[in-house]
C-alpha cells in the first residue's frame, strides 16, 4: 500500500458517510424522543427500544429470525456440503444430471414456487410453523456448486490416506474435507445466513401468526400500522429498523472480507 493522501482519505470518508447518511441518521433518530424529533430539539432516550421490545414484541421477532436463519444456515450447509462432496469425489450414474439440476436452480426464478410451496405446506399443516419457514429455504444450489468447486481443489491424496487408515466416506468428509474447506464453508454460511435473515416474501406468505413473525415482517407491519396518531412515530420505527439491521451490520464489520470473497468467487470465478 502506498502512503495515504490525506485529501483523498478525507474525500473517501465524507463520500462514504454521505452515501450511508440515511441509515446512519435513522440509527441516530432511534435514540431521539418523538417530541424532540418533530420539534427539532435534542433529547435522547432508550424508550423507543423499550417500546419496540416490550409493546411491539420485537424481542420475539429477533428470536424468530435467529432461529429461522440459524436453522436454514446449519441444515443448508450440511446438505450442500454432503452433496458437494459426492459431486466432487464420485463418478456415479446420473451424477452429472443431478449436478446439472442443482446448478440449474441458480437460474430458476424463485417467484414460480411461491404459490405451489404455500399449497404444499398448507396441505401438510406446516403453515404458521418454524418448519414452514425453514424447509423451503434449505436447498441452496449455489452453496452446493461453490463448495463442490472448492472440494475439487483439495488434493485427493488426503482422502486416500484416510481411506488407507480404514476411514469411512463419512469420516473422510468430516475429518478431512470439512476442516480444509472451513474458509469456503464459512463464506457460504455467511451468505446463506444473510440472505435468509433479509428474506421477506416467503415469511410474508407462510406466516400469519404474530408469534412467528420474523424481524422483516414485524418491521414492515410496524411501519404500516403506524402507531403515532396522525404523525408517524418515526423514532420508534427506526429503533425497530435498527434492531433489524444491527446483527448483520455488526457481522459485516467483522467479516467483510469473507463475505466479499464468497460473492465475487461465485460471480467471477
Amino acid at each position, binding site marked *: 500500500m502506498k502512503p495515504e493522501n490525506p485529501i483523498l482519505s478525507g474525500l473517501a470518508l465524507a463520500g462514504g458517510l454521505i452515501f450511508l447518511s440515511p441509515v446512519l441518521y435513522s440509527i441516530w433518530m432511534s435514540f431521539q424522543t418523538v417530541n424532540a424529533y418533530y420539534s427539532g430539539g435534542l433529547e435522547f432516550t432508550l424508550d423507543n427500544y423499550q417500546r419496540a421490545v416490550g409493546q411491539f414484541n420485537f424481542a420475539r421477532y429477533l428470536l424468530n429470525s435467529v432461529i429461522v436463519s440459524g436453522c436454514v444456515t446449519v441444515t443448508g450447509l450440511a446438505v450442500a456440503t454432503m452433496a458437494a462432496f459426492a459431486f466432487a469425489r464420485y463418478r456415479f450414474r446420473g451424477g452429472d444430471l443431478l449436478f446439472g439440476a442443482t446448478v440449474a436452480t441458480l437460474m430458476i426464478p424463485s417467484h*414460480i414456487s411461491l404459490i405451489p410451496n404455500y399449497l404444499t405446506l398448507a396441505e401438510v399443516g406446516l403453515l404458521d410453523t418454524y418448519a414452514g419457514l425453514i424447509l423451503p429455504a434449505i436447498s441452496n444450489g449455489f452453496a452446493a456448486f461453490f463448495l463442490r468447486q472448492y472440494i475439487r481443489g483439495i488434493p485427493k491424496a488426503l482422502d486416500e490416506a484416510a481411506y488407507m487408515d480404514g476411514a469411512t466416506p463419512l469420516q473422510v468428509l468430516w475429518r478431512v474435507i470439512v476442516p480444509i474447506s472451513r474458509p469456503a464453508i464459512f463464506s457460504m454460511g455467511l451468505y446463506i445466513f444473510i440472505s435468509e435473515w433479509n428474506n421477506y416474501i416467503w415469511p410474508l406468505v407462510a406466516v400469519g401468526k404474530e408469534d412467528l413473525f420474523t424481524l422483516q415482517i414485524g418491521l414492515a407491519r410496524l411501519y404500516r400500522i403506524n402507531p403515532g396518531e396522525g404523525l408517524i412515530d418515526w423514532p420508534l420505527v427506526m429503533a425497530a429498523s435498527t434492531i433489524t439491521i444491527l446483527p448483520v451490520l455488526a457481522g459485516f464489520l467483522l467479516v467483510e472480507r469473507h463475505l466479499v470473497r464468497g460473492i465475487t468467487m461465485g460471480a467471477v470465478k
Partner: protein
Amino acid sequence: MSSAASRFPLPLFAIDHVPPLVVTPAGSMLRKLTPYLFVAPLIAFIAMFTYIPIVSSLNLSFREWNFLSPEMPFVGIENYRLLLGSRDFWNSLRVTTIFTLISVPLRLGLALAIASYLVRETLPSRFLRGALFLPSVTSTVSIAVVFSWVFSTDYGLANAVLGHLGFGKVPWLQDPQLSLWVMIFVNTWKQLGYDIVIYIAGLQAVPQELYDATAVDGGRRFHVFRRVTLPLVMPTTYFLLVISVIEAFQVFTIVEVMTHGGPAGATDMLVNMLYRVGFVLFDIGTGSALAVLLFIFLIVLSFVKSRVIGRRVHYEA
C-alpha cells in the same frame, strides 16, 4: 484424478473389478449407494421446493381455484386470456419494464465508473468499497422503511435538503410521475455496491502489463479505459447485465413496503401483482398463469446468461 479413482475402488465403475470374495454383496451395494446417499437430501429438497412447483404452477395455471373450494375445474387457457386482457397486467409489465430499462444501465454505468476509481488497494478506497457494499447485505425492508422516511413529504430528509436550497416540498411517493423514480433510486442505492465489488474483481483480473503497454504507447486515461478496460471487463458486464435484469424483473420488497404498488398502480411490479392476485385475492389460477409467464421470460434470459458465462470461460483460457 483418474489414478486415484483406479487405486481406490470406492466409486462405482471400479467396483465391478473387485473380486467377489473380497467384497460381500451387501458391502458392494452400500458402496454403490454412497454417493446417492450423500446427494439425496439436497436433491429431495430441490425436487420438492424447486422443480415440482414449476410443474404444479403450470397445472394450476390451467385451473380455476380460490384455495377454499373443494373443486378446481380445468379451464384451459382461460386464465391466460383473462390476464392478457386485463389492464393491471399490461400496466405491471410496462412499469416493471421501465424500472428495469432505467435501473440496470444506471447501476452498471455508475458501478463501472466508481469501480475503476476504487480498484487500487489503498485504505480510502477500501473504506469506500465497504461503505458502498454495506446496503447490499442490509435488510431490504429496513432500507425501504428508512427511505420511506427520507422521501416522506413533510418530515423527510430529501425535502429538508431541498428546503435548505430554497425549493418547495415534493410529494415523492404520492406523485405517480415521481414514485417510480424513487423506486429506481432506492434499488440503485441498495444494489450498486454489489455491482462495484464484482466489477473490481473483474478489473483486478485484467493483467497490469496491458495497462503498462498502453501507457508506453502514450495512451491517455480515457483512451486506456475505452481500448483496454472496457473490452476486458465485457464478460463481467454481460454477467451483471443479465443477473440484474432478472433481479429487476423480480423486484418486490421495496415496492411492497414503500408504496404497495401505488399511487394508482404507478409502481405496481409484476411480482407485487402476483402476490396480490395469489395471496390477497386468492385467485390461484390467474396468479399461477402470471408466475408461468414471468418464469418463461426469465428462463429465456437465463439461457442468454449461461451462454455468456460459457463465452467467458473461453475468454479466460
